[in-house]
C-alpha cells in the first residue's frame, strides 16, 4: 500500500507545487503508515528528481519520454496509471493546478477511486477541509472508501523541507499517438518573468482608480521592486486596459498569496471572492468609504499616484538596509 504523488515539472524543473504536494502526501503517508512514492513525467534532471527526498519522498518513478514535457489529459493519465500500478497506490495526490484539475478526475474514474478536489489541509478523522463558495465558507468533506485521489490547493498548506535524497527508478510508459488528446501547436509565455498568479506569494493589483492603461508604470515598478506579480480587477480587464489573464476575482482567477496589495480597487464582493484567502491584504484607495477597507489588514487613504511611488521607494530602502 502506498501514497503516490505527482510531482509537476515545467521546462525540465520541478515546480514549487511539486514539493508542496509531496509534503502533503508525506503527511498523509505518515497518518496511514503507507509508503510514499513520487512520479515525475517528462524531462527532469537527476539532481531535481533526487531532491524530492527533501519533502520526504523515498522513491521516485521517472517517465522520461519528452512527449510528456507538456500535459494532455490522456497521456498523463496513462502514465499515472502505470505509476499507480508500479507503486501499488491506494491514494494519489496531485496539486490543484491546471495539470492536477485536468487529470485527477480521469485517473479517479479509471481506477474507480473517490476524487476529493481542492483540499486545504491534511484530513482530521477522515474529513478533508475545502474552501467553498469562492472562499466565503469551508466545507468538510467525508469521502467514501479509502481509495482516494486528492488534489491540494496551492499556497494553502505550509510545509518544511528536510535534507533527504530520493532514489530514482525509470518508469516505462508505452505511448502511441492516440494517447495524446490534442496537438499543442504553440506555447506562449505570458508571465513576463513574473511568478504565475496562481502560484505567486506577492501580488500587486490595480483597478479603475488608475484612470488609464498608460498609468500602470508605477504599479509595475512597485511589483518589480517587491518581486511581486501584477494583477487587476475585472473592469480594467473588460475594457482592455490589462490582459484577461491578470483578472483576479470570482470569475477570473482566485489567488491566495501571502500579500495582496490592491490599488484603486473599490472591493466589489465578486473581487473579494477571488482574493479573500490572501494572508495579508493592503488597500490603497482615495475613497475612505471603499468597501475593500473592511476586508483589509492595512489601509492607506490617498491618491495612488502619490502613495505608490513612495511605497516603491520604501521597499527599495528596506532591501538596501
Amino acid at each position, binding site marked *: 500500500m502506498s501514497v503516490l504523488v505527482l510531482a509537476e515539472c*515545467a521546462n525540465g524543473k520541478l515546480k514549487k507545487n511539486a514539493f508542496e504536494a509531496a509534503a502533503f502526501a508525506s503527511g498523509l503517508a505518515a497518518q496511514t503508515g503507507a509508503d510514499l512514492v513520487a512520479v515525475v513525467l517528462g524531462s527532469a534532471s537527476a539532481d531535481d528528481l533526487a531532491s524530492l527526498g527533501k519533502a520526504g519522498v523515498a522513491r521516485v518513478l521517472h517517465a522520461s519520454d519528452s512527449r510528456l514535457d507538456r500535459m494532455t*489529459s*490522456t497521456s498523463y493519465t496513462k502514465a499515472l496509471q502505470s505509476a499507480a500500478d508500479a507503486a501499488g497506490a491506494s491514494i494519489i495526490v496531485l496539486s490543484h493546478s*491546471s495539470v492536477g*484539475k*485536468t487529470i*485527477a*478526475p*480521469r485517473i479517479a*474514474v479509471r481506477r474507480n477511486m*473517490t*476524487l476529493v*478536489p481542492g483540499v486545504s489541509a491534511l484530513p482530521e478523522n477522515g474529513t478533508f477541509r475545502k*474552501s*467553498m*463558495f*469562492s472562499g*466565503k*465558507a*469551508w*466545507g*468538510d*468533506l467525508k469521502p467514501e472508501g479509502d481509495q482516494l485521489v486528492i488534489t491540494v490547493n496551492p499556497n494553502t498548506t505550509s510545509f518544511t523541507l528536510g535534507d533527504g535524497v530520493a532514489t530514482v527508478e525509470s518508469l516505462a510508459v508505452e505511448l502511441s499517438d492516440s494517447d495524446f*488528446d*490534442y*496537438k*499543442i501547436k504553440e*506555447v*506562449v509565455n*505570458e508571465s513576463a518573468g*513574473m511568478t504565475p*498568479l496562481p*502560484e505567486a506569494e506577492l501580488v500587486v493589483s490595480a483597478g479603475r482608480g488608475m484612470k488609464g492603461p498608460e498609468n500602470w508604470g508605477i504599479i509595475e515598478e512597485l511589483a518589480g521592486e517587491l518581486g511581486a506579480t501584477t494583477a487587476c480587477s475585472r473592469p480594467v480587464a473588460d475594457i482592455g486596459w490589462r490582459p*484577461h*489573464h491578470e483578472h483576479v476575482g*470570482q*470569475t*477570473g482567477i482566485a489567488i491566495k498569496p501571502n500579500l495582496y496589495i490592491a490599488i484603486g480597487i473599490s472591493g466589489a464582493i*465578486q473581487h473579494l*471572492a477571488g482574493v479573500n484567502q490572501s494572508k*495579508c491584504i*493592503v*488597500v490603497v484607495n482615495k475613497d475612505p468609504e471603499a468597501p475593500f477597507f*473592511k*476586508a*483589509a*489588514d*492595512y*489601509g*492607506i*487613504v*490617498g*491618491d495612488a499616484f*502619490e502613495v505608490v511611488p*513612495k*511605497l516603491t521607494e*520604501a*521597499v527599495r*530602502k*528596506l532591501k538596501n538596509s
Partner: protein
Amino acid sequence: MKILVCISKVPDTTAKISFTDNNTKFNEDKVQFIINPYDEWYALVRALELKEGAGGTVTIVNAGSADNEQIIRKGLALGADDAIRIDMQANDAFQVAAEIAAVAKEGSYDLILCGKETIDYNGGVFGGLLAEMLSMPYVSLASKLDLQENSLLLEREIEGEKEVIEVAMPCVVSAQKGMAEARIPNMRGILASKSKPVAVITPSGTTARVPVASFSLPPEKGACKMVDADQAEELIRLLHEEAKVI
C-alpha cells in the same frame, strides 16, 4: 453540429452565504440563484455564437430539482434550442458527471462544453470526469474556441502560459474567461423560451462519493490598520516586521 452545454445552478455572486440544519445545508432563504457564470457567460454564449455562425443545435443539460426550471429557462431565453433536466438532488461532481455522461451518450454530441468550475463548490473537475466517462479528449481551462473544418482551435490559459491547441471532435471543453462576453436575453428570446422543450428524465441513481458533512464560515477579519498617506515607509515597515510578508 450538435453542442451540449452543461449548466449548474449556483447562488448569485452577491448572495450572503449562511447555513442551516446545524451547518449541514446551504441557507437558501432570500438567495437569488443564477446559472454558474463560467457555464453561462463563457460556455453557453460561445456555443450560441458557434451555432449562429455555422448552424446546428445547442442543448443545455442540468442536474437538479424542478426549482431549477428558472435557470434553465434563462438559458433557453439566451438562445439554446432545448434542454434536458435530470430530476435529482446534485450532491457532488462525480454523481452529476455520471448522470450527464448517460445523457451525452444518447445524444451523440460533437462538442460538450462546461465552465471551468462552479462558484459554489469550486471543484473544477467536472469536465475531466465527464471526458473520462465518455472516453473523449478533454481540453480544460479554454479561453478561446474557434471552429475549423473538422476540428477545434483552442487556447488554454494556464499558469503563466497560453497553449494553442488543435483537437478533433467529439470532445469535452471547460471554459474560462476570454471565450465569450456575457449576454442579456432579449424580449423575443424570453418569449420564445416559454415554448421551448425541456425534457425531464429520471436519473440512473448514481450516488455521491464526496458529500459535504458540514459547512463553516471563516473567522471575521479584524479591524483594518490605517496608515497615513504621508507615512508610506511605515506601511512597508509593518509589512516587514509585523505581518512578516515581505
